[in-house]
């Protein structure tokens, strides 16, 4: 009687293992689940190419697309035309596209932009503290921030036009109730 129970116990025990293998092979191990989506976007204070200081707080009531990139990053090249299109599609009074140069020099970034175009603003993050604050582990990484100051989506890897349009449209449609940036608890 006891043996009969054990007979189906073994294949049953194998099921979770098989499921684990199936799940493990089906997912992209490079992409990590981020806890940042839904959080209040960490405040930053970074300098652009002209030497002016930019703060996230200055962009309140606007939809912000924060794009971490570098001139040495190959996927950033394929992504660039989508960003150019993004800049052209929405007015900068409504949607702010901001590039954060990651582990790269201003000179290299400017050379890249001269070649590939785009008029939007870029800031430098030489200490990478802003990148760490956003949980960035590679480039490109893009954060969509609503008018309420919350991150609605984080994209690891190059963005597609479909994703940008969907994210921006839904963020523009959402009412902007500003969240208190203080609750983010970001680095000063």
């Amino acid at each position: 009687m006891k043996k009969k129970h054990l007979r189906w116990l073994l294949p049953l025990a194998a099921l979770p293992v098989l499921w684990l293998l199936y799940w493990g092979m089906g997912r992209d191990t490079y992409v990590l689940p981020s806890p940042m989506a839904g959080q209040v976007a960490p405040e930053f204070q970074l300098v652009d190419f002209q030497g002016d200081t930019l703060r996230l707080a200055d962009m309140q009531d606007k939809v912000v697309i924060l794009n971490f990139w570098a001139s040495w990053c190959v996927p950033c090249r394929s992504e660039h035309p989508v960003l150019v299109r993004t800049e052209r599609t929405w007015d900068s009074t409504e949607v702010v596209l901001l590039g954060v140069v990651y582990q790269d020099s201003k000179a290299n970034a400017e050379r890249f932009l001269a070649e590939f175009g785009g008029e939007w603003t870029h800031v430098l993050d030489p200490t990478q503290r802003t990148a760490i604050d956003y949980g960035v582990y590679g480039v490109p990484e893009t954060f969509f921030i609503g008018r309420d100051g919350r991150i609605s989506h984080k994209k690891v890897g190059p963005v597609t036009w479909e994703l940008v349009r969907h994210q921006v449209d839904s963020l523009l449609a959402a009412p902007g109730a500003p969240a208190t940036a203080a609750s983010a608890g970001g680095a000063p």
Partner: protein
Amino acid sequence: MSRGAASLLILLLAVGPAPGTAQETPGATPSAQQTEAPDDTTGRSALTDPREAELDAQAAEVASGLRCPVCRNQSIVESNAELSREMHRLVRDKLAAGETPEQVREYFVSRYGEWILLKPQARGVNLLVYGLPLAVLILGFFLARNRLRKWAGAGGAAEAAGVVELGPDDEEWLREALREG
């Protein structure tokens, strides 16, 4: 074999320095920086100031439990990736600012998720990781003990009687073998 190793070494040397490491100081006005990063995580006055040395040791301890987001299977102490070194500095700065090691770890978890911890926290579903091996080990021990006892008991009884009972399967096999022979 050695040629394979040599070509691997060459490949590693060629790929070696992460992109961007060559440009150590991207041009920026230092006045607007949030924090002055120290030149080195472990250098400075650690040799002369015991408090600095203690801070370094504490930072190294916390940092050794944090996963390098670039290389994935190294701690940020072992890793030479630029991001890891900056994270190590950040750990030290936070400790120097008076945060507890637990607060520093929580900060990194809040930004990168629990994945950043090399050792999963012993709570929630994670308890399975800690408890399951022990449970399986104990279960296996009792299973093995019962089996062995049964086998020993069955073998001993048959020997004592001097006969071995044939099952229906054995009987059929024997008949077949005799027919063929």
